[in-house]
């Protein structure tokens, strides 16, 4: 690990003024620093900031402090009651030890688990821009089939962020100049294009302080994760789904996907294929067609495309009462 300067911040304002890399749980950043994939010159410890509460807002939504550990968020009674898809997504991720450390803000900013991003002997455009992509044409079983570019096929590894995308979360930030921003999660992540090293719209020194959830949505919520082992593994495919059925027709649908793209993936065409229709296999197939229309495998991840179709249809069948 390269050495660094260390400072503990005592307020969010002091943290953004300190001009360094923020560290909270550290479970991802320190791992990458050990491998010298991340080499910050200064770490600003934000772990003691007063950002670890979950508060109810007047509109019925929740404001989650950026330092709320994944464990606490998953077990919060208000989350379990109003946003079970979020509890389920969190509990499907990592291990008990990691969830105790990992923060809400840090989880959103996790780096990819692409093998070649981690292997510093190999070219990787995300780690070393312009060096090439070893995953295209390499081992890519776990990598993306949607939203990729000819520069990068990395996936975003978070489960939590997939549920938050289905829930229309808003990310609240503080910038070094004192301005605050509220960023819809759908606008937060960037596609790789020809700059895969830039993963979000955050500016230099901008700190995530909170995540806001709108009031609990109508309908039934589900998180389903398919992975290579039964616990403690990243998703091959995951689905966060919130569906309501009224008068035998799908009245509302929110669907987000993990393991498929460089960001927690959501496509309005999937929801448009469902809403207003009576649940049926044909309707579910149409939703899968809409999701996978632009899907592109890279060889050993080709299986994700038919797998996703089957998992999505199974989720929709379960959420609409098994009527189709």
């Amino acid at each position, binding site marked *: 690990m390269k050495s660094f300067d260390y400072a503990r911040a005592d307020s969010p304002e002091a943290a953004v003024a300190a001009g360094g890399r923020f560290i909270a749980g550290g479970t991802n950043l320190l791992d990458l620093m050990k491998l010298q994939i991340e080499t910050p010159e200064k770490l600003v410890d934000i772990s003691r900031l007063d950002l670890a509460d979950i508060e109810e807002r007047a509109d019925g939504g929740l404001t989650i402090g950026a330092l709320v550990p994944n464990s606490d968020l998953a077990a919060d009674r208000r989350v379990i009651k109003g946003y079970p898809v979020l509890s389920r997504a969190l509990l499907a991720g990592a291990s008990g030890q990691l969830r105790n450390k990992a923060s809400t803000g840090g989880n959103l900013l996790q780096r990819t688990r692409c093998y070649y991003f981690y292997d510093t002997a190999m070219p990787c455009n995300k780690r070393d821009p312009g060096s090439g992509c070893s995953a295209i044409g390499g081992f890519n079983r776990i990598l993306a089939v949607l939203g990729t570019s000819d520069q990068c096929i990395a996936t975003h590894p978070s489960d939590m962020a997939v549920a938050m995308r289905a829930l229309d979360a808003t990310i609240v930030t503080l910038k070094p100049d004192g301005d605050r921003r509220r960023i819809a999660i759908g606008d937060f992540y960037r596609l790789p294009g020809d700059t895969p090293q830039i993963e979000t719209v955050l500016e230099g020194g901008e700190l995530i302080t909170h995540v806001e959830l709108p009031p609990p949505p109508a309908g039934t919520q589900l998180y389903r994760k398919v992975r290579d082992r039964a616990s*403690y593994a990243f998703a091959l495919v995951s689905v966060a789904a919130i569906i309501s059925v009224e008068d035998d027709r799908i009245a509302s649908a929110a669907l987000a996907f993990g393991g498929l793209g460089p960001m927690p993936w959501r496509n309005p065409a999937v929801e448009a294929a469902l809403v207003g229709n009576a649940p049926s296999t044909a309707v579910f197939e149409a939703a899968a067609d809409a999701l996978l229309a632009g899907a592109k495998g890279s060889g050993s991840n080709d299986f994700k495309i038919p797998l996703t179709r089957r998992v999505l249809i199974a989720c929709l069948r379960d959420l609409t009462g098994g009527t189709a």
Partner: protein
Amino acid sequence: MHFTINGAPREAEPDIRASLLDLLREHLGLTGTKKGCDHGQCGACTVLVNGRRINSCLTLAVMHQDDDILTIEGLGSADTLHPLQAAFVKHDGFQCGYCTPGQICSAVGMLDEVAKGWPSHVSGSLDAIDLNDAEISERMSGNLCRCSAYPNIVDAISEVAGLAPSGADA
């Protein structure tokens, strides 16, 4: 730097880069906590910080100067075994023993999480936990055992949790 380890104040001057794990092992001589993968994948380094189980390899020592750190040495001794230590002996919950301190610290933290009503990935309901072997296995998935003593580890934890025996002892 000032630390509180197993209830006692300790002083050390590790490099700023030192993990909590390296502080314990290399600077304070507390070698009960083991280094397996050093990347948070195996759980051998599990300790309790302010009562919560974490991977000590994935956190900086400098970040824990105000915390209560509990290691396997603080849980029990050869003469006064912690109930989980005694249960691991009784049920033969190990072979080589390298993962055992992490398994036991993790189990202490895990049973506290159950007592607090935290659900898990395999909980049928998020509101009420029915602790059973499947729950214990899921909740302990961050601790690997290359000797694969898992059935006996589950039996040991199950006994301390007050569950009925699930099968014959080893």
